[in-house]
């Protein structure tokens, strides 16, 4: 029997790109994006808890080697940043960017009364709410208040299977798209159902009942269908000018560059990387993940720069926690607390921020944080996305001066 699938592959007759009356094309023609209007924030989640001490290595602190008899990275192997700390050698491509002044490293980032559960601590970082349970993410709250055009489906995009809590908003529906060809309805349609036909049914709103949720369902339905079909078409005209590593993160950042380069009005992108939960034989796993991160990030910024977009995009990493100072008996590390994070981009004032936490003043075997993560969020919101940060991060925090 004839199957009229309506997945992307079956859409060859549908022309979206190049259509002058398309919403995005119209918007771009009418309002050239101003300097502060086309800024993008890319959040990279180092899932699982990245070991900060073997990322930004305190090679100048003798105690480090006492606590890390097998995992310690030798002083001569460290890519030195100053007399105390240096980068894990797996981060060599990132060190080049650091030397070019495009990488800010904030040390000892955490929050009071740290929670050592992956689950709860991830939620704390994503909602920016360490002492309560918030139902929106901090970037979701940014989206709710930013006044972005509501008809644009791609104000923010999560490059993930499931919408992360950081992008859960009250009024904005953020699509979660793990990869272009995997987003959308299953290809095997039932009984030769046509594409427009399906849409018409799924939009059935003139129903014989009232429901306070009916408009909401219809709106989400519209977003889901348009998002699945339009995004691949929209970004198809972009050609990458860098070779991305063939890793999940490489693919995610390649898609991120496409979305940025297509100028869809996207302000926030979310990418994930991991898992860093290295309880056993940490070195191989962490080195691989850090190398993948550095290589993919270098390719990303090479690609962005080739398209003149590198100053439009700031990338910020986070991980739910660092790891225990002392390595465990399995050549791994257990859950810990504060750790460093990276803020990267052409507009970033590179260098070291905050202080390396003391290894001689621990709390239950964990370092004490020096910089509250909300001060980093405040910088990203106030100085990059240019919105008041207090209602978004949940209080008044002095922004870390990450931008020139």
């Amino acid at each position, binding site marked *: 029997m004839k199957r009229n699938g309506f997945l992307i592959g079956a859409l060859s007759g549908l022309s979206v790109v190049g259509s002058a009356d398309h919403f995005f094309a119209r918007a771009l023609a009418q309002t050239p994006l101003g300097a502060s209007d086309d800024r993008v924030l890319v959040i990279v989640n180092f899932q699982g808890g990245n070991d900060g001490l073997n990322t930004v290595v305190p090679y100048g602190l003798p105690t480090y080697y006492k606590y890390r008899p097998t995992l310690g990275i030798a002083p001569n192997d460290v890519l030195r940043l100053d007399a105390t700390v240096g980068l894990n050698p797996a981060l060599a491509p990132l060190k080049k960017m650091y030397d070019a002044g495009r990488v800010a490293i904030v040390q000892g980032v955490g929050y009071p009364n740290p929670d050592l559960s992956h689950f709860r601590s991830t939620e704390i970082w994503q909602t920016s709410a360490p002492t309560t349970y918030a139902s929106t993410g901090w970037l979701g709250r940014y989206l709710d208040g930013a006044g972005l055009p509501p008809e644009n489906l791609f104000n923010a995009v999560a490059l993930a299977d499931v919408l992360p809590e950081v992008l859960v908003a009250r009024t904005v529906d953020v699509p979660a798209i793990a990869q272009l060809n995997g987003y959308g309805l299953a290809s095997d349609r039932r009984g030769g159902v046509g594409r427009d036909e399906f849409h018409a049914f799924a939009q059935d709103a*003139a129903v014989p009942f009232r429901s306070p949720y*009916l408009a909401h369902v219809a709106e989400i339905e519209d977003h889901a269908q348009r998002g699945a079909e339009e995004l691949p078409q929209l970004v198809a005209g972009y050609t990458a000018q860098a070779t991305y590593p063939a890793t999940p993160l490489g693919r995610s950042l390649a898609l991120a560059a496409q979305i940025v380069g297509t100028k869809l009005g996207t302000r926030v992108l979310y990418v994930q990387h991991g898992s860093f939960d290295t309880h056993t034989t940490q070195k191989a796993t962490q080195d691989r993940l850090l190398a993948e991160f550095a290589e993919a990030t270098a390719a990303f910024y090479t690609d962005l720069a080739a398209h003149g977009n590198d100053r439009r995009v700031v990338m910020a990493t986070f991980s739910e926690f660092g790891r225990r100072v002392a390595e465990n008996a399995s050549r791994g590390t257990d859950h810990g607390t504060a750790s460093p994070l990276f803020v990267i981009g052409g507009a970033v004032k590179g260098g070291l921020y905050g202080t390396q936490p003391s290894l001689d003043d621990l709390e239950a075997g964990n370092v004490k944080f020096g910089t509250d993560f909300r001060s980093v969020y405040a910088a990203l919101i106030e100085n990059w996305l240019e919105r008041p940060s207090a209602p978004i991060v949940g209080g008044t925090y002095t922004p870390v001066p990450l931008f020139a």
Partner: protein
Amino acid sequence: MSAALASDSTSYRPTGALDLATALEPYAGPWSARQAAHLARRAGFGGSPADVAHLTAAGMHAAVDGYVRFADASALPSSPAGLLEDRRRPALMPPGGDLVAFRKQIAQAHRADSIALEQWFLDRMIASPAQLQEKMTLFWHGHFTSAYQKGIPAQALVDQNNLFRANALGNIHDLTLAVSQDPAMLRYLDNAQNVKAHPNENYARELMELFTLGIGNYTETDVRESARSFTGWNLDRDFRFVDRPGQHDDGTKTFLGRTGNFTGRDIVAIIFAQPAASRLFADRLLNFFVYSDPEPELVEAVAAQLRANGFVLAPVMATLLRSNVFYSERAYRALVKSPVQFVVGSCQLFGVAASDATMLGALSRMGQRLFYPPDVKGWDGGAAWLNSQTLIARENFASGLMGKMSDGGWLGNAVHTMDPPQVARAVTDTILQGDVSPAAANRLVAYLGGSGEAALGALSGENADERIRGAAYLTMAMPAYQLA
């Protein structure tokens, strides 16, 4: 909470006015498949076409009785078969064992047990003759949350789930006390670590904030004093509740205005003497069973019923499921189906007798994994169930389910006619009790008759089965099918 977070106050309360005077009086209006299916979606998960026909024939009072008086479900397994994890986790590694291999083995057991847990509960929801008991168990699972994490053995979550089941419509005060001594909860909210020398406030705080009173009805001092009262309610080496007098703080505590040498039992009793407790449960029940963001007056009316019944839920639920407000147009399809209800209800509708493992992935993509609530406050529900990704996951689940249907037997005799309007009517009546627009009904007739977008040719014995599944898929894609 230290600082206010920005939010808006989107409310999904139905439009129109509440008639408070008659809201909880017994409903005496029309009773047809429309009302019967509404009851089946709320008190259960939707049921089969035969279930709806049975409820329609029974009339409202008998139909509600059938839910509130639980049918015998003892034939269903009370525990998943073949759990791998030792109740004492982490089990000891055999001497001389390989630590890495041992950890891998534990992780594999955890994954296998996770699947067994989820399917066990799903299968009970699909097949139990006591549908309201399972619906209430799901309600309590989202209320007194514990997750399959933090080293909690799977069997402890089975036990907790059975505690909810055994107290599904029982005394909420008793259930709260039992939850306070439940091993999975003791670990999940850290009361297992709450001892005299080092009080841990986690359980004491969430007990009031999320489980019974709500923010604003207690102080930080109350949190500290109740945490002291719960000291010594810990776990033994076999992951069972133990009351350790030596770890209990015997000093005087002052809690919610009362002073004494309180234990956890006293704390729960004092909490249930607060009017705020009855209002919190009334609010949660109305949001789960009737409509979102209920009026404070309605909440208070249900709270008064809870107090009058000594927090025994069965008579209160019976009143609610018979009430005018429950059958009002304002409550009709006024809730978003949870992913679990979407999956369980679809299985019941199409006669799928048991879950399969693919449903677990689908549920995860829809945003609800059983035994993995997103945090201690449970699933937000309502509008939060739906975003682009979760809605597509629902549609893909519907497509997959239709792919597995071997025939249109669920449609009964209608499948034997080749008359498109008759078949279309049977499909939309069976799935949505006719809750479709005239335009959609016409489009469905056109699709079935082969004159829709895809121009498929006339309906015939050869293509009827495939075509009817397509029609069912289209009907499940309609917004009404997302609504309970």
